[in-house]
């Protein structure tokens, strides 16, 4: 107990020192690595309630690593890994950190974070509970997780070892690549990905953010090494396929490497986009027609728009490179109040679980469609039971906030509704604020909805889909903005 208190005091002291002490602009060191994380086939892919076994890999899956470092007294570190995955389980993040730490004992492994692009055609990563996957004939989850940890940690180590002086520039463009998927009807209810060609259709529930935030990194010889592309849209255009596919990020990478060099490392970051989808919610026919006239698939069309934004930014900012800059990476465990499970929620979930269990017992094949949904609701049952023991349940979230020159990078572990991201961006002191969602998930991920979404109902805003609700969302926004403020208020000498 005394040790715990001491540790806490030490942490707070360090954090206070970190947040108030002046720092100097320092030479930036960069390291980058791209690694193939395509699974061995066949494999269970995740993103739908029903089980899908992929027999084919339509595109490779990629993890892209970017190491940023400054040295000396005020030196800092960030290891950022973008992964073609639906989500990154928190325990998997821990395994990657442990593995890297084992190989690089000097590294602060807490400065590593991984984000998922949210492709719905990548392997299951949660160790248990998601699907009843056949025990033979398909790649097992534990095997893919082992493969993933090995590949990603090796890539991090390699990028770390190769880090060298470099420079960075930031830019912003626009691409219409994400659409709000929550439809509001005349009776005040909302639907998710539901119809708009109805007289009852009134509006879209939330906002969209079409900014494309970009970072460009060069080595000290002026060679472009890496490009970060932040888009407020999950990569789930081909989400229903029984295949492995990196979705629109694949043609984005192909297009970028074709233009900027095949060795350029591309990191895809999904900004706050819990209520966003790349699917068209209206005027689809017109969009499809244009795509056909251009002879492009839908993922290629999305990539075309994103690449145009990248190109415009590159042309504008390429001559404004920063090699000496203020770089700081703040990490903390942020406790967010969990969304309250009502007794009604509990009873309904319990009844559903009971019914599903009976159906599966009667016909084991029913598990393909029911198992994930049953576990999804069973989580609610368990939450309610925990809530009875302690009504103030808190969700511990790893919060990373980075100051890189004039820009801020901040993470969260949710499918964060766009309003929260916009609140952060609007209040941020940074010139540009890169919000990255899905940087670690409990189980297989969780939406974080707004109050108006909760009021409207529908899949992404109901209790089973939300560990944290609107109240916790605001805590997340306020704390993120507070940390950005503190990072910006420091005087750079």
């Amino acid at each position: 107990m005394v040790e715990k208190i001491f540790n806490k005091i030490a942490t707070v002291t360090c954090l206070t020192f970190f947040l108030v002490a002046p720092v100097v602009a320092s030479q930036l060191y960069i390291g980058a690595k791209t690694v193939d994380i395509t699974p061995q086939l066949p494999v269970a892919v995740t993103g739908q309630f029903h089980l899908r076994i992929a027999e084919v890999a339509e595109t490779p899956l990629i993890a892209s690593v970017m190491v940023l470092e400054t040295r000396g007294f005020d030196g800092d570190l960030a290891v950022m890994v973008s992964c073609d995955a639906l989500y990154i389980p928190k325990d998997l993040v821990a395994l990657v950190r442990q593995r890297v730490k084992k190989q690089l004992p000097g590294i602060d492994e807490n400065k590593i974070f991984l984000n998922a692009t949210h492709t719905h055609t990548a392997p299951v990563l949660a160790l248990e509970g998601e699907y009843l996957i056949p025990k033979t004939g398909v790649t097992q989850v534990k095997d893919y997780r082992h493969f993933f940890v090995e590949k990603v940690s090796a890539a991090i180590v390699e990028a770390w070892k190769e880090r060298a002086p470099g420079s960075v520039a930031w830019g912003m463009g626009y691409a219409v690549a994400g659409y709000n998927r929550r439809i509001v009807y005349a009776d005040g209810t909302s639907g998710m990905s539901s119809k708009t060609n109805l007289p009852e259709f009134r509006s879209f529930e939330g906002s969209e953010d079409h900014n494309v935030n970009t970072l460009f990194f060069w080595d000290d010889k002026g060679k472009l090494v890496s490009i970060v592309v932040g888009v407020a849209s999950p990569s789930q255009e081909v989400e229903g396929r029984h295949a492995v596919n990196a979705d629109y990020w694949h043609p984005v990478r192909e297009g970028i490497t074709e233009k900027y060099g095949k060795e350029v490392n591309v990191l895809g970051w999904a900004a706050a986009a819990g209520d966003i989808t790349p699917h068209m919610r209206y005027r689809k026919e017109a969009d499809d027609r244009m795509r056909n006239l251009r002879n492009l698939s839908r993922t290629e069309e999305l990539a075309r728009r994103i690449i145009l934004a990248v190109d415009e930014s590159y042309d504008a900012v390429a001559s404004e490179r920063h090699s000496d800059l203020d770089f700081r990476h703040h990490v903390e465990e942020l406790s967010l109040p969990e969304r309250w499970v009502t007794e009604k929620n509990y009873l309904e979930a319990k009844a559903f679980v009971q019914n599903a269990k009976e159906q599966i017992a009667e016909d084991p094949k029913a598990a393909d469609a029911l198992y994930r949904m049953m576990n999804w609701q069973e989580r609610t049952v368990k939450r309610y039971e925990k809530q009875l023991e302690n009504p103030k349940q808190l969700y511990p979230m790893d919060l990373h906030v980075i100051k890189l020159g004039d820009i801020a990078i901040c993470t969260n572990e949710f499918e964060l509704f766009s309003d929260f991201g916009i609140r952060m961006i609007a209040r941020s002191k940074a010139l540009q604020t890169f919000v990255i969602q899905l940087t670690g998930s409990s189980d297989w991920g969780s939406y974080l909805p707004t109050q108006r979404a909760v009021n409207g109902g529908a899949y992404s805003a109901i209790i089973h889909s939300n560990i944290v609700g609107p109240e916790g969302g605001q805590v997340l926004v306020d704390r993120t903005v507070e940390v950005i403020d503190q990072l910006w208020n420091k005087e750079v000498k």
Partner: protein
Amino acid sequence: MICLKQCFSLLFLSIFSFQNYAQSDKDKNLKVGWSTVDITPDKPVLVAGQFHARLSEGVMDPVTATILALESGEGTNSEKTIWISCDLVGISDGMRATANLRDEIRTRVVKAIPSILPEQIIVNATHTHAAPYVASIAAVEGIYGVSLDQMANGKPAMSPATYIPIAADRIAQGVVKAWKKRNPGGISLGLGHAVVGLNRLQALKHGKSRMYGNTNSPEFSHIEGHEDHSLNLMYFWDLNKQLTGVIINVAAPSQVSEHSYKLSADFWHDTKLAVKKSLGDSVYVLAQASAAGDQSPHVMVGSKAEERMQQLLGFGEEGTGRGSLAQRKQIAKRLADEVIDLFPVMKANIEWQPEFKHEKKLVPLSRRLLSPEDVAEATEEAEIWQAEYDKLKAEVHDNPDIIKTPRWYKNITISYSKLRRGLVVSERYELEKTQPKMPIEVHVVRIGDAVFATNPFELYLDYGMQMKAQSPAIQTFIVQLTGSGSYLPTQRSIEGGAYGAVPASTLMGPEGGAELVEETLTLINKMW
């Protein structure tokens, strides 16, 4: 040698195209004519768009009207549409005041070309806030509470009553020119995307909304409504497959330079220059604003980053940020980039005999139902502004030299505008009792797989989306401000209570909006 080859190719292409055209059903042949006229006045005029009066102090760039004359078929029964896009804030149509620029134009055109019917002429405004005032022919003192002579301090200036017939003359001449120049042609239909219009309403955590508020505040909750970044495009070609012009329809009013005392067409001026630079000087651009009552080009979130990009893109010479020429050029780039990018695809997909129909209907819409509380609140505000106006007027009386100070009339004209604004609420309240419905003009024009649907309002975006979502057309061009304006807000916005949704800003409410959507869709569906 190369030149000879090119001539042969062109000749062959022309013959081939003409044969295709000549062999077709003549009833479906499309003829297209274009013109542009300068409607910039040669004397200072009132500039429309703010509460305070602005007497123009020169010309930043010309304000224009672009005319597209379309005819399908032969003889008196041919289908015709004359589309006129004006760099104006609105098109007076008798709905809100005595002025009627729309009918002044129609009368002149019909007189010059009797085969054209008044209802075949559509006039839309781009909503630039730096163009001549055309909303009323009343004496300027009746509009702004100060005489034109006082505002101009005795220098030459032109009243709206004088300007409107001049503008109508020039536009009608432009129509005659476009009509005479019409030639066989084809169209192609394109959809692009450009982030231009941004929702300007911010919902706060306590449930109320505000327009152009500070999003950098803990009280900011979310952007109240949606945005629509689709760019509806229609390209027009001659028989040699040369581009003659393009309609650009964007859900954004052109009001970057909205506080300017110099006349300007706003970002449409820069857009036209950018398109012409790439696609040819002879190419016409006809600008339309889609439903955008709650939109503006002003950046509500992340403006610092936007401003920096304007600088880095090389537009910063004359300033960056809100209201700057750099922002206009950045918008023009986004619009022109899409038009240019699609050009080859459009050229390869020309339709020579598109289905062409035009219907106009007077649609009775429910006036906004106001409450006695609305009237009381507005009357109270009017009384406050009356007192302010009286005070400022007395100051002018006591100190007549004040009118020598540049723009001296700003505060007094604000007070008078707000006084009038308060008074109209009770007028509308009384009118609703005796005339609960108000007829408004709606045009629906089908061209090929596209449809154009007009309304006279600053129509909130949701209504436009509702029409687009339910329309059977592949692309639905909503064209707002084919009349004198007035916001048409959503229920959500009325609850938020920001500027465009308060009783003084509106003739219609959500009930009228729902009727407009339904009636427009009925007209569209009839054409499919």
